[in-house]
């Protein structure tokens, strides 16, 4: 039997420093150490103390992992140790990457019940053991709740890039929900394609948000230099989108210096006769929120104070809630609010141009 069992005979537990306890644990048989730890508070080995010992360099990583993995240590106890604030993110990562605990089931439970989102996000971002597909399995795992997954994705310890790569590989990306750094749909056109799109692992994302549907398929148009381009007269192209609440955001750029030019952003589109859209004209100049209901077009919010900047990028967004309340923005400035419930569903999202000049779009996001 290792020296760990003699602790009580020579010195009371609380008389040892963390350094000394770490050395003792380092000399102990993993099964014995795990049994002691598993008895927990009853013998004075409270979680915070054990976590400090596991974080101490006097306990080798190999020994720490062998104790952590030992069958005598319950999953809940192990989870509480690795999740404790006294165990650093870096040490937790090392233990994770060397642990033989079942993946994804046990780790999904540990992430869900015992580890804060920041530490979990740190491990997901920095692990050299797991692949993107591994993490996608864990994110899909039923032991990891939607709420916890969402808080991990919102934590800045996880990069948008890594998060998007994982979500792209998930079986059920809708589990990520929306809010925080998460959205329904997004396109950056960095892959310079409109169909057969690249995932984030193939071509890195340029978006500031992790989305359920990344780089959707488009009905037409061009993708060049990382932007979407419409060149036909009054051309419009679509992707599938059934979202009816949240925010719709897009950047656009209208080329040319004369003639009637602009863009239309049909953010909720049922058919040719029923849709909501933002419309921008360079010649008025204005940005309006409009609807087409039963084939008849109405202006819901008219805005006449948009500066007529030619040949520059603009951005706008619109918000809609379940009650049909809208708010429209140009940049960071709210233009107005209105309420309308004529249209309550959506099949598509269209980007369109006005006139026959090149019109560019980028950073489309629904969130």
């Amino acid at each position, binding site marked *: 039997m290792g020296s760990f069992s003699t602790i009580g005979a020579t010195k009371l537990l609380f008389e040892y420093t963390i350094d000394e306890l770490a050395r003792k644990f380092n000399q102990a048989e993993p099964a014995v150490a795990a049994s002691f730890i598993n008895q927990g508070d009853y013998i004075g080995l409270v979680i915070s103390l054990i976590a400090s010992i596991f974080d101490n360099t006097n306990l080798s990583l190999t020994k720490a992992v062998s104790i952590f993995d030992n069958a005598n240590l319950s999953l809940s106890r192990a989870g509480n140790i690795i999740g404790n604030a006294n165990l650093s993110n870096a040490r937790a990562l090392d233990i994770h990457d060397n642990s033989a605990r079942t993946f994804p089931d046990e780790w999904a439970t540990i992430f869900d019940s015992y580890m804060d989102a920041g530490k979990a996000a740190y491990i997901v971002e920095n692990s050299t053991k797991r692949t993107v597909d591994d993490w996608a399995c864990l994110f899909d795992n039923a032991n990891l709740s939607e709420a916890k997954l969402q808080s991990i994705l919102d934590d800045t310890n996880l990069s948008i890039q890594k998060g998007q790569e994982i979500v792209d590989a998930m079986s059920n990306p809708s589990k990520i929900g929306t809010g925080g750094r998460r959205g329904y749909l997004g396109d950056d056109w960095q892959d310079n394609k409109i169909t057969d799109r690249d995932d984030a692992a193939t071509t890195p994302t340029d978006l500031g948000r992790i989305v359920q549907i990344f780089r959707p398929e488009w009905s037409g148009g061009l993708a060049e230099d990382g932007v979407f381009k419409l060149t036909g007269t009054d051309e419009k192209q679509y992707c599938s989108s059934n979202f009816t609440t949240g925010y719709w955001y897009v950047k656009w750029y209208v080329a040319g210096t004369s003639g009637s030019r602009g863009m239309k952003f049909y953010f909720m589109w049922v058919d040719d006769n029923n849709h909501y859209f933002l419309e921008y004209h360079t010649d008025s100049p204005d940005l309006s929120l409009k609807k087409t209901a039963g084939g008849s*077009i109405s202006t819901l919010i008219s805005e006449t104070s948009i500066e007529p900047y030619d040949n520059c990028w603009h951005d706008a967004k619109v918000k809609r809630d379940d009650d049909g309340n809208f708010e429209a923005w140009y940049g960071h400035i709210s233009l107005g609010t209105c309420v309308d419930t004529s249209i309550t569903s959506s099949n598509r999202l269209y980007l369109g141009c006005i006139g026959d000049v090149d019109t560019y779009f980028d950073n489309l996001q629904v969130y």
Partner: protein
Amino acid sequence: MKVWIKTKIIGQGTDGDPKRPYLAGQRVTASMIGIDMGACLCRIAGTPEQINTILEDTEITQLTDEEARQIIKSKYPNSDLENLDIADPEINEIAKLLGLDPEIRGDIQIPTRGKQVLQDQENYLMAHISEKLGLTKDFWDTEAKKSKWEKGIEIEHDIKEGKIEAHEFVLSRIREKLKEKFSKQSIALEA
């Protein structure tokens, strides 16, 4: 300047001639909801001169906050005054006159009252304008007591809830102070 109006809907509903509120030929910003065949409730914003021209039109009726609320609620029970509103360009112009960048209203992106950002952004910009004009908290508390409120903060709450009465109460005092400031400057210049 903002007002509630009830007006007729014009336009054929086509791309070049969409249905929109009749505004006596004035180019002002507007937000509208249709209320019955051929009529709509609008909140409009423009210069006092533009608004006065619109209100002089016999086909246009000015409404109070309460009248507007009743119309909104009758059609959309879960909506309120804040859900039919339009950015006031007059505040931007005043801000520019005082050397303030009207875009600072964009500093506010999360509403502190209600669910819409617009009213919070306008309140924020008007607060900066007030500060620039020396209109202090004590001033607003005193002004509030002269009217229906007890304290200045109550006016702010009403602005954030989308009440034109509160918006215009503040704006009217800003206009007065602005007039006073520029008339003093012009006297000083003449002297």
